[in-house]
Each structure stands twice: as C-alpha cells, then as structure tokens.
C-alpha cells in the first residue's frame, strides 16, 4: 500500500538528496563533454577556504612609515602573497574579505570565495533579524485577534492575505513600493515630512537593500505564523485563564504564567520553521535585486542556484546546498536542545 508513496518520496526527495551530496565531491558540470571526476573536498575548500595574513606597514630606508596622501599607513600589495607566491601556497587564489588594524600591523582576512562568504553573512543577518521580529510580531497579532469581537474574522483574513499571494507577485509589488523615483514608500515619507525627505533608491543602495528585503519578508509571512500562534493559543484551557483571574493576575502576569508557558511547543515549532524558511531566502532576492547592489543581498540559496544553473557548475551548487543543509541541521539541533523541556 505504501509502495507508490515510498517510490515517489524516494524519486523526488531521497535520490536528489543523495545525488547532491555525491555531486559535491565531483567536478560535474551541467553540460560538459568531459566525464566528471572525483575531486574530494576540493569544492568545499573552494567555498569555505579562509585564512588570515598579518602584514607590517611599508617603511622607507630610514624606517619611517610610508604614508599615502590621506596620511594613512600603506601596506604591501596583497597580490604579492596570493598570486603564485611559493612561500604562501595556502593563500593562492584568495582575495581580501575584510581587514582590521591592531597597533601598526594590519590583519587581512582572506577568503577563497568572498562572494559566498558575503552570502553566508547576509543570510545569517537575515535569519537573526527575521526570526525574532517575525515570530514576535506574529504572536502580537495572534494575541490581538484571539478575542471575541465583531468582525474579528475580517482582521484574521486581512493579516493572512499576503501569505496566500505568491512571493514572486509580492516581490514584484514591493519593487514598486521601494522604487527610487516615485515609489510608494518615498512618496509616503516625503508626504509625512512635508517634502523634506530625499528619495532613496531602497533596493539600489548597498546600505538599504538587505533591510528593505527583510522588512518585506517579515510582512509577507507574518500572517502564516500568526495562524500557528493562534492555534497554540486556542489549545490553552479557558479555565486556566479563569483560575488566574480569580487569583488576581494582571494582564502581563496572565501572559507570563499562563499564556507563554502554554505556548512553549508552538514557540519551538515557529522558531524552527522561521529559521528554516529564512535560510532558504531566494525568491525575493531573485525578483528584487539578484544579489546586488555590490553583492549586498547575496544569499546562500541564491548563490546555489546561480552557480548550479547560471554558471552550469552543478557540483558547486550542490556543495552549497550540502553546506546549507549542515548549517540548518545543526541550528535546528541546537534550538531543540536549548528549548528542551527541563525535567
């Protein structure tokens, strides 16, 4: 009886999963006349290779610092170390990710793949902001609409509406809202500030692009999590609220002692679901910014798709997928461990 189901799950879930892991150890390309070769962990090294290099500032013959026009110390060119330098074989092919100065010496953090590092960083920032903000906002909405009021279903429907609309459509619409010239947001801000606000190209500016996508993403899925919170709220027995009312609990105390403990399992679920979804950030990026401007909205999944299909480097894309899997798995396990029921 379970045969067809097992077959389909195997075909569409288990086989691709194993395939991805397998491909990540080869140099397979999507369309290539050459047979794939086993390359070991080369792909992983290419993506995750990170090293540091500490350089002393350049000094002239007298030992004084050589300064540029702005008066800052200058350092030897990194190229000298990362391009076929036999003394530094480990740094070959790396590029500067970022650097910091301790005393006079400057430490350069180098990465084999700076774009991928940026993608990981952006994704982590996205998750760290979206998970608490979206979860918290959804809980707030759920508490608001968990009342017996006339027309409360209308509010439930309104908050849930963005969830029903495809994320691609939502992203397209928000591109108009964020438009740099006559976007809704710019017009609104200009109106509220009596015209003193200077229009910003929200998606075209390095500093605001990721923030804009974060705000839109929170708005889009908050209704979904609101519904999950709501179902959690409705499993709490009304007599517990009555008991706490008789005991004299204030609104906040009722939330703290009755509602929140009753939502424990829901909270764990929501946290894990939001985290997973946030790590999978792709559609918004693909529609709104395509990773730009200046890689400020690169994400892990977007990189996986770009490499696997855009650049036909399916083994590179697979490797990114496997890395993402490892990240999400370990975060889920940590979350479960942190939120376990203490006995």
């Amino acid at each position, binding site marked *: 009886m379970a045969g067809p189901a097992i077959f389909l799950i195997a075909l569409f879930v288990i086989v691709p999963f194993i395939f991805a892991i397998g491909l990540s150890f080869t140099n397979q390309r999507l369309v290539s006349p050459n047979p794939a070769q086993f390359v070991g962990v080369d792909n992983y090294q290419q993506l995750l290779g990170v090293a540091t290099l500490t350089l002393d500032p350049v000094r002239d013959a007298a030992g004084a610092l050589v300064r540029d026009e702005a008066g800052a110390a200058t350092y030897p060119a990194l190229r000298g170390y990362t391009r076929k330098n036999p003394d530094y074989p480990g740094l070959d092919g790396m590029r500067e990710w970022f650097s910091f100065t301790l005393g006079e010496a400057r430490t350069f953090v180098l990465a084999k793949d700076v774009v991928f590092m940026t993608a990981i960083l952006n994704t982590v920032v996205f998750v760290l902001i979206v998970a608490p903000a979206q979860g918290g906002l959804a809980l707030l909405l759920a508490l608001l609409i968990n009342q017996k009021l006339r027309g409360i279903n209308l509010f439930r429907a309104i908050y849930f509406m963005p969830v029903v609309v495809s994320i691609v459509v939502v992203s397209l619409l928000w591109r108009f809202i964020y438009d740099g010239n006559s976007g809704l947001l710019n017009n609104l801000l200009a109106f509220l500030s009596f015209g003193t606000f200077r229009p910003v190209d929200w998606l075209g500016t390095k500093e605001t692009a990721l923030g804009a996508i974060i705000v839109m993403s929170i708005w889009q899925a908050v209704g979904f999590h609101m519904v999950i919170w709501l179902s959690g709220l409705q499993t709490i*027995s009304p*007599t*517990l609220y*009555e*008991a*706490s*009312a*008789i*005991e*004299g*609990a*204030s609104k906040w*105390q009722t939330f703290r*002692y*009755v509602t929140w*403990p*009753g939502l*424990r399992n829901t909270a764990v679920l929501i946290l894990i679901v939001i985290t997973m979804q946030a790590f999978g950030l792709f559609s918004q990026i693909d529609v709104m910014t395509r990773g730009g401007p200046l890689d400020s909205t690169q994400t892990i999944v977007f990189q996986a798709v770009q490499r696997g299909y855009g650049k036909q480097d399916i083994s590179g894309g697979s490797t990114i997928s496997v890395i993402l899997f490892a990240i999400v798995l370990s975060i889920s396990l940590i979350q479960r461990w942190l939120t376990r029921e203490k006995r």
Partner: protein
Amino acid sequence: MANVALTGLKKSYGPVDVIKGVDIAIEDGEFVVFVGPSGCGKSTLLRMIAGLEDISGGTLSIGGRVVNDVPPKDRRIAMVFQSYAIFPHMTVRENVAFGLTIAKMPKKEKEAKVAEAARILQMEHLLDRRPSQLSGGQRQRVAIGRAIVREPAVFLFDEPLSNLDAALRVDMRMELAKLHQDLKATMIYVTHDQVEAMTLADKIVVLNAGVVQQVGTPLELYHSPANLFVAGFIGSPKMNLLPVTVEGVTSSSVTVGSPDLGVAMLPFRPGAVVVGDQVTLGVRPHMLGLGAGTRLPGAVQLVERLGNETIAMLRLKSGQEITAALGGDQPIRVGDRIDPGFAPTAAALFDTAGIALTRA
C-alpha cells in the same frame, strides 16, 4: 468569613434568560450546595458569584458588600474547578503559591502558608512534583490547596469531584466535609450528584431552568419536597408518583382513590384542592414495607438484591410500575404478587399544579 446574599439575581444571554431571579441567603460558615440537572443554571450562578460571568440584574453581596461590579480577585473568594485548572508547567508548590506569587508576598511568608495548606491536605510529599505526575484526586487536592492559601471568605466549588472515579469521589467527599469543619469558612458547592448534595450540605438549593425550586436542609428536601420536581430529583431510587383522584376533603385530611390504591385517607391540609381533582401521591421506595399500612399490591417484575436491602420493581393493576426498597434480604422472586404498604404520614401529596400540600 462572610455571608453571601443573592437578591433577585438574573442572567441573560441576549433574549435568553438563564437565571430568572434567584434569592438565596447564605449564612457565614454555611456549606451550601446548588444541585439540579444539567443546564439548570447552577454553574452559571456560581460563576456569577465568582465574577466570571456578568450579572444582568439583581444584587450580589458578599460580607455585606455589594460586589456586582467588583473584579473576581477583590471578592475574597477562591474557586475550585471541575477540570482542576492547575498550571501544567508549575510544580505543586508553585501552583499552590500562585495567588501569593501574583500578590508578590515575601518568600518566607509564602512558604509558611504553602506548608500549612499542604499539611491540612496531607500532600507534603507531593510539593515538588508536576501535575502530570499526579492522579486526579491529587490534582484536585492541589487546586483546593491553591484555594486555601488565599484564605478566602467564600470557597466556591464547581463540580470538583465529577472527574474522579467513584471510590475516590467518596474519599474526597469526606475530606471536603472535614475541611469545612476545620476551616469553618462559607462554602458554595455545585453538583449534579444528589448524594454529594445530601452528604455535604448544611443547606441545599435545588435549581431547575434558572429558578430556585426549594431551599432547605437535606432531610427537609427528602421528607417534604416542595414540588414534584424536587420530589423526583432528590432521593434514590426515585420517589414513586401515582396519579390519584380526590374523593373527599376535611380541614385536616384528603381522601384519595385510584384503582391501584383503593381509597386512602391522608393527613394533609387540602388548601385549594377540591373533590374530583387529579392530584399526585408521592411514596418513597424506602417508605414501602411488607408490614401494615396503605397497600399497593402488584406483581414483581425485577428484583435487585443489595444485601442490606432488596429493591423490587412492581407492576400495579393499572399497569404503572413502582419501586419498593424493602429492608433486608427478602425471599421474593420475579412473578410473585406482593402488597407492600406505607404509612400515610410518610407520603407526599401534590396538587394539580405539582405543589406539595402541607401535612396536617
């Protein structure tokens, strides 16, 4: 400690009246039981006293203070729910201390009170457990403990024993009676179980369809039910109710007749009853005996032997079935014809409207 007075208390949900004007006076330290069939409004009434339901009309006062619009926490009440309503994520100790934690009582004082409540309820050994590790009876004990530490003027119990199994219910019932003796607090108790009502109450309030049917001590209700509803509701097995015709009245007696009964003169004041009225004769199964008295002959249909008594179901001449609870182990069998009798002074007589006549 406080008395509770309900005066013309009403509750309606939109156009539907659930409580239709209830007047009850509850003395300080009294154990009052509200009893009635499901949906009679007894729980609603209790929840109105607790402050969990608004009052649509009339006044409610606790300790001489009108509390219609006072929030539950300021009514000096504590409530024990049928579903226990103890917090699943807290230990027993935290549950019992909940109200004190809310009131930000100093830790030492709080612990002393919890220890005292635990001692009264004999659950010191349970204090560090969680509700999931407790049996139903223990959970209800925790809920009662939470009520005790509040030192309320009035305890409210909403069918507290209904979720327990039969044996435990009897134990807890006795413990509640003991608790009332120890604390001497006013207690209001809602149940649909008349045994609980009879055993616990100083005063029983019988409710039906949002109207008080009778208020009285358990034995008053048993021996002198005010109307047919109370007569049928209190007592197990149920009172036998026989249709009879009035054949004669004097100032202190009513003579009734029916094919089953023949003619019997009963010592009741006739009131408005006149010759020819169709009235109802009530005879409790336990009032019937195989000795002398007014006879009700019939054929035995069913025999239940309980050892201390024998319950026989009889079919009378008219085809009506009655129950007789005969003392001891009686050698009767299905098909036997017996004629148990009752003392006319022990019977009850209800007029055409179902209201009891007073005994002469």
